[in-house]
């Protein structure tokens, strides 16, 4: 079977019919990418009202929830799309493992996928921290201390994220920049490479 339509371009050029039949694990990667687009759009809109300061974060979220029309809907869509994206990425990875698609020639793309999984988890966590209430403040504290324990790069990573050895009043701004700019930018670059490698490496794992 030859795929010559637009959507088919993210698949290898030639595939057997069997490989593209609709199944229970079909298109989990596509679902994750769709959720990424939803998150980008709703996140862009939410960023208009969010204030990345210790006091402003709470006020901004209050406005989004109670003052702005459809604010609560927008924030709920962003939240649930984030949770679903983590689930979709995990299931996508599980399917790749079960299909043995992590082996050569697709081993490099498997590593890119793992990087995307770490980025997804990081974006999910940095978004959670943006609430900047007691719960998320201490969650950030614990995770950043754990990061500091990573051999060799841990300490530097912690410093780079927090702008110091401890969480301070610049915390919301740091996590805001990570969540809205660095993370999504890196993710988009990795996703593009991931898609290109899917097409280049050829073959698709046997669907279930």
């Amino acid at each position, binding site marked *: 079977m030859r795929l010559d339509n637009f959507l088919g371009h993210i698949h290898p050029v030639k595939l057997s019919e069997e490989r593209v039949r609709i199944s229970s694990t079909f298109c989990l990667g596509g679902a994750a990418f769709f959720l990424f687009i939803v998150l980008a759009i709703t996140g862009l809109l939410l960023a208009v009202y969010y204030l990345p300061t210790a006091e402003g974060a709470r006020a901004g979220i209050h406005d989004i929830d109670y003052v702005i029309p*459809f604010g609560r*809907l927008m924030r709920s869509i962003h939240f649930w799309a984030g949770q679903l994206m983590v689930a979709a990425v995990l299931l996508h990875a599980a399917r790749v493992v079960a299909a043995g698609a992590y082996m050569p020639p697709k081993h490099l793309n498997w590593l890119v996928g793992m990087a995307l999984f770490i980025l997804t988890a990081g974006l999910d966590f940095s978004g959670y921290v943006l609430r900047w209430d007691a719960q998320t403040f201490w969650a950030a504290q614990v995770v950043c201390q754990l990061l500091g324990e990573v051999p060799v790069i841990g300490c530097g990573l912690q410093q780079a994220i927090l702008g110091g050895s401890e969480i301070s009043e610049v915390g919301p701004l740091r996590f805001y920049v990570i969540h809205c700019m660095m993370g999504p930018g890196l993710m988009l670059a990795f996703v593009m490479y991931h898609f290109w490698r899917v097409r280049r490496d050829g073959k698709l794992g046997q669907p279930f």
Partner: protein
Amino acid sequence: MDQEDKHFGSGIGRRKILFSLGWLFVGLASAGVSWIGGRFLSGNENLPPSRPVNFGLPEDHPLGAVVRKDKVVLFRDKAGFWAVTAVCTHLGCQPAFLQEQGIFECPCHGSRFDAEGRVLAGPATKDMDLAALRIDGQGSLVAYPKDKVRPGYRFG
């Protein structure tokens, strides 16, 4: 034309109808999402009322009266009537008039305004509008929020 399409006979195939319905759905969904996004970006929905607000006969409101109706608050002092469009100029919430202190206070972020809508405390930076007042054909006092007047305005 395939076998299924022949049932229609008119030349419009089932596939074509399904495609059209699909595009219609996509179009409606896109319009809906755009509308929601637009409303979200344009801030609070508590916009000033566009229709005139009828306060009834002027003699029904004694000296010192404060009457709230449809986001407009009518006042009366010795010099006459005036009406404030009680919509906060910060994010559009509806400030309450505190009788004892004689000021408006916004429940959302605490902006304060005097009885003529002038800002006393932020985060709002602009004064609230005063609506023009007129007597209609039935002799009722009517506020026109779209016709703005300056502080110090009195009617009657």
